[in-house]
C-alpha cells in the first residue's frame, strides 16, 4: 500500500464570489508524479496554488475545505510553514535578479534568516544543482547573477532553489510553457529523477507532456476534478464524456 502525502477533502477556492475550484477530493501518493491537466480556466493552477496557500495572496481570494499534508491540515497551518514543506516552481523562470547563482540556490535559507556554515552552504548548493543537472554547467560561474543563464537553465535554477529547502512536495505550474523543446525535455527528464525523493504535482496544458511524465493524471474541467487515473487508461478508456471530448480535441 503506497502512503498518501497529500489528500484534499471538499476543497473549494474562490475569487470573490466566483467559485473556481469545486469540491475537489484527491489523494496524492508519495514519490509519484501527478499531472493536472485541463482546458484554460478550468481551475488547475488555482488548485495547485491552493495546496501551498499561495492562492490567498491574491486580493479577494479565499478557500475552504481541507488539505492534509500527511495528517496535518494545511489550511490550519501557518502559510509560511506550509511553503517550507511544499515547494513551488512557476510558469516563467523567476530567479532573484539581485542574487548570484549560488545565492539563488540558498535563497530559501537566506530569506528565512537561517544561518549556515560556509561548508554546509557549499554542500547544499552542490547537491541541489546536481539534482537538477545544472552543476556541471554552472560550477565555474556560481558568482554570476542568476539572470545571466538561459531560460531553461534559469528554470532548473528555480527548481534547485525549491529542492534546496528539502520540501516533501514540489508543485510545478506549467513549468515548461516558457521553454524551448530541448530545455523542456531536460526538465521532463528531471521529473523522473526528482520523484525518487519528492512527490511532484505538475500542472500542464499539454496532454503529451502529461503522458510522458506522469504516473497519474487528474483532469479538471470547469473547476471540477472530473477524472483521476493512469493517463493510459484515460486515453484508451475514459470514464467521463468530458474527458473523452478533451482528449479527442473537441475543446481545448
Amino acid at each position, binding site marked *: 500500500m503506497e502512503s498518501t502525502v497529500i489528500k484534499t477533502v471538499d476543497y473549494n477556492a474562490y475569487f470573490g464570489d466566483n467559485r473556481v475550484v469545486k469540491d475537489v477530493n484527491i489523494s496524492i501518493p508519495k514519490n509519484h508524479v501527478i499531472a493536472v491537466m485541463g482546458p484554460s480556466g478550468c481551475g488547475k493552477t488555482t488548485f495547485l496554488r491552493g495546496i501551498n496557500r*499561495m492562492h490567498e495572496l491574491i486580493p479577494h481570494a479565499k478557500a475552504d475545505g481541507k488539505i492534509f499534508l500527511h495528517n496535518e491540515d494545511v489550511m490550519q497551518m501557518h502559510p509560511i510553514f506550509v*511553503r517550507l514543506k511544499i515547494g513551488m516552481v512557476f510558469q516563467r523562470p*523567476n*530567479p532573484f*535578479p*539581485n542574487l548570484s547563482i549560488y545565492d539563488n540556490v540558498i535563497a*530559501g535559507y537566506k530569506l*528565512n534568516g537561517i544561518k549556515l556554515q560556509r561548508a554546509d552552504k557549499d554542500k547544499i548548493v552542490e547537491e541541489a544543482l546536481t539534482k537538477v543537472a545544472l552543476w556541471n554547467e554552472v560550477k565555474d560561474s556560481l558568482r554570476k547573477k542568476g*539572470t545571466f543563464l538561459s531560460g531553461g537553465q534559469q528554470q532548473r535554477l*528555480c527548481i534547485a532553489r525549491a529542492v534546496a529547502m528539502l520540501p516533501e512536495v514540489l508543485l510545478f505550474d506549467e513549468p515548461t510553457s516558457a521553454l524551448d523543446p530541448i530545455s523542456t525535455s531536460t526538465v521532463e527528464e528531471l521529473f523522473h529523477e526528482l520523484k525518487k525523493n519528492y512527490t511532484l504535482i505538475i500542472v500542464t496544458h499539454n496532454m503529451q507532456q502529461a503522458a510522458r511524465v506522469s504516473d497519474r493524471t487528474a483532469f479538471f474541467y470547469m473547476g471540477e476534478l472530473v477524472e483521476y487515473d493512469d493517463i493510459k487508461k484515460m486515453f484508451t478508456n475514459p470514464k467521463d464524456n468530458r474527458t473523452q471530448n478533451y482528449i479527442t480535441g473537441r475543446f481545448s
Partner: protein
Amino acid sequence: MNALLKYRIAKSKTLHVLTSVLAFACVLPLMAILSFIIKAGITKINWHFLVNIPKPVGEAGGGIANALLGTLIIIAVAAAIAIPVGILCGVYLSENKNSRLANWSRLCVDILQGVPSIVIGIVAYFWLVKPLGGFSAFSGSVALAMMMLPIVIRSTEETLKLLPDSLKEAAFALGTPFHRVILKVIIPCGISGILSGVMLSVARVAGETAPLLFTAFGNPYLSANITKPMQSLPLLIFNYATSPYNDWHDLAWGASFILLVFVLLLNISTKLMTKKWKVQL
C-alpha cells in the same frame, strides 16, 4: 498632388526643426546660470574661503565654513527623517495599490508636493520653533524633510510598481515572511530607483531658503548644535546678497558657486549610481 505632397513634407520638416530648436532652448537657461555663477563665483573660492567663518563688515577675507557645515548637518538630519518614512510609505503604496488609505495618502503626497516651501516653513515654525522656544537647525531639517517626502515616496512607489509580481511570488513560495520579502527582495531589487529618488530629493532641498528662514534662522558663527540656530548656504546667500556690503556680495557669489556645484555633483552621481546598481530583471 505633387504640391500637396511637398506641403506635407515641408510641414513635417518644420515641426522637426521646431522641436530641435526648442530642445536646445531648454539647455540655454542652465548654461546661462552656470556661466554667470562660475564667472562671478570661482574667483572667490580658495582654501581660506572654505575653512573660515565670515569676518565682520569692513575686514577683508572671511569664508563660509559655518554655512557649509550647517547645510550638511541640516540636510543629513532631514534625510535621516525623510528617507525611512518615505521608503516605507512608498512600499505601502506599491503593495496596496487600491486600498482607501493608499488612495488618500497618494492624494496627500501629491498635494504636499505642491505646497509652497514658505508655507512649509511657517508650519514648521508653529509646530516646532514656537513650542520648543527658539529657532533651531532641527526644525529646519523637519521642514526640509517634509519637502523631501513626496519625491522619495513617489519614486519608491513607481520603482517598486515596475517589479514583476513573479519576484514576490518566488520569495513567498520559499516560505519567506512578508517583512523579509520587502527588506531582502523588493527593496534590493528596486534600490537604484529608490536611491535616485533620494538623491534627487536631497538636490531639490539643498537650495531651499524659504523653509529655513523661520526655522534654522541663520548664525554668523560656526555651530554644530542642532537645537540652536544654524547657518546654511541658501540663507547665507539670501542675507549677504541683499546686504549693502561688497565683501558680503563676494561671499554670496562664492557660496552660490559651491551650492551649484554640490547640486550638480548630486545629479551626476545619481545618474552614474542608478546605472551601476540597476538590477537586470
